[in-house]
């Protein structure tokens, strides 16, 4: 298994190269002179020249590309233009907040979504199915910031149950959990919708399989039939979708962090956008690319845990 993981990591290098190249091109696509864009119209020629040299923009494009790749693979993502701190430090500083939020959302989404999808599939075309489908379609239709706003108004403003603003920097564990609650529920409910939907369709497929009939012919009772025989097999496509959902989850968590004024990648990105901090944005993209690849590999490895047919060879 470890060997397999290492091989998958090595195989991911070409993919990463392609992604990095795409990022490199994207950043160079910025219309006009990046230095002028960054510094604004009033910048003097000297300071523009200085910034170009600092960014390496005065070099030929090939040299820039090689330098860029070299920097990435040696772990140098440059310094934030606005704060002057290394990009990696900026990101690592807020990452725990985002990880905390996404993990909480995954827990909520899976704990609620799996049973909802299973019940919908088992009671197909009866009211639990209709209810579950309606709930998941609603969840799929809510843009994360819209649901966030509605949650905020209902729970924090109208009912006054939870703090309006996200977790402060200090505070007890209780404060921290209360600050986490609304953002995590917001993200979790959306994830629940995805999980319920895919669980339902995957379960419907599995429930029609011959081996389910075999198990019934053995006298297996409904609960065990669903949990051990059906759900276990239905998990395989569910894992794929949850893995693919990672991207959406990160995107939604960025919006959620902004809505709930919570520290994290969302605010970092927003800050970088407003400050036209291109090195920070570029660094963030690179780190996301790496994350995506790692999650893909983790998804592949997770198959092996549920599907004995997967061989790590």
């Amino acid at each position: 298994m470890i060997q397999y993981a290492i091989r998958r990591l090595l195989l991911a290098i070409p993919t990463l190269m392609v992604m990095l190249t795409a990022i490199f091109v994207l950043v160079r696509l910025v219309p006009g002179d990046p230095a002028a864009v960054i510094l604004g119209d009033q910048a003097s020629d000297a300071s523009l020249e200085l910034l170009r040299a600092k960014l390496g923009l005065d070099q030929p494009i090939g040299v820039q590309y090689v330098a860029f790749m070299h920097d990435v693979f040696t772990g140098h993502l440059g310094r934030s233009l606005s704060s002057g701190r290394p990009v990696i430090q900026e990101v690592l500083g807020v990452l725990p907040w985002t990880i905390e939020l996404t993990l909480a959302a995954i827990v909520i989404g899976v704990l609620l979504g799996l049973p909802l999808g299973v019940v919908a599939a088992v009671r197909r075309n009866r009211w639990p199915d209709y209810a579950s489908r309606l709930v998941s379609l609603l969840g799929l239709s809510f843009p994360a910031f819209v649901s966030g706003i509605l949650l905020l108004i209902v729970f924090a403003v109208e009912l006054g149950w939870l703090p309006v603003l996200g977790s402060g920097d200090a505070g007890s564990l209780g404060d921290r959990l209360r600050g986490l609650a609304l953002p995590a529920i917001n993200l979790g409910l959306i994830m629940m919708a995805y999980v319920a939907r895919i669980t339902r369709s995957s379960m419907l497929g599995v429930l029609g399989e011959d081996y389910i009939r075999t198990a019934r012919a053995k006298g297996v009772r409904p609960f065990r039939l669903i949990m051990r025989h059906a759900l276990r097999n239905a998990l395989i496509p569910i894992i794929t979708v949850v893995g693919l959902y990672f991207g959406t989850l990160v995107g939604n968590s960025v919006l959620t962090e902004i809505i709930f004024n919570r520290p994290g990648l969302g605010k970092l990105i927003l800050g970088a956008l407003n400050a036209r901090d291109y090195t920070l944005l570029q660094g963030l993209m690179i780190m996301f690319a790496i994350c995506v690849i790692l999650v893909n590999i983790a998804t592949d490895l997770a198959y092996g845990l549920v599907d004995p047919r997967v061989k790590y060879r």
Partner: protein
Amino acid sequence: MTTLAPTAATRRARAWDTFSRNRLSWIGLALIALIVLAAIAAPLIAPHDPLEQDIVARLDPPSAEHWLGTDTYGRDVLSRMIYAARISLFVGFVATLIAMTIGATIGILCGYVGGWFDQFMMGLLDVMLAFPTLLLGLMIAAMLGASLHNLIIAIAITEIAPFARIARAPTITLKQLDFVEAARALGFGPVRIMGVHILPNMISDVVVMGSLWMASAIRTEAALSFIGLGVPPPAATWGSMIREGFDNILDTWWLSVFPSLAILATVLALNLLGDALRDAADPKLRAE
């Protein structure tokens, strides 16, 4: 799969049967028709000029004069929302159309050509598929600068991968079917085979997905506008209206909540419609 041509008509009839019997599909269709009509007829039905400022009536809550209240400049929220529908729907539609065209072309090429080209492109698209849609759109929009064109381009790029996947799988199946083999034997070129023999057989799948992805495009547009990467003012989209109202959401909730509901209704309607279309097009889901 048996012969395709003779069953196509009955398949369509049966799909229509399933679609028309699904009550949710009619709700979705009615809702989306209503929104599209409102957007088209905006000058006729909007109670006020969306750009007309009224200093006296600033930040009025919903009232008989302004059903959904007014904003910081005293502009009528309902009228602005109706006009914003035009841009939101346009962006969603055009971005999806672009993504559909490029994605389906790539998918058909991959399925038809196969080999390393297919492997490479699919590997790339897999990564794109997994990359956060919103962040990708956000980065692209940020790099290109905020404008209507760039917004559409950014959203379109994020949606190419799913369309390519949808188009690729049936191409591989169709490629091996007799009538394509026959066309090849008759000396038709690959472009003609892909365009005349393969594309029409999958176009319904691609269009069905288009409805679901247009919902996603509208959502992404709203999110980008909310972050501040949308269409520059004074033009408004639902996302940018929410953004304008968000700072003082505790006091002037109507500024954000009504555009939020408009987005929700549109996306929900498109999702209902897309789901119903997909159920109708997929005989496996239809079979009882």
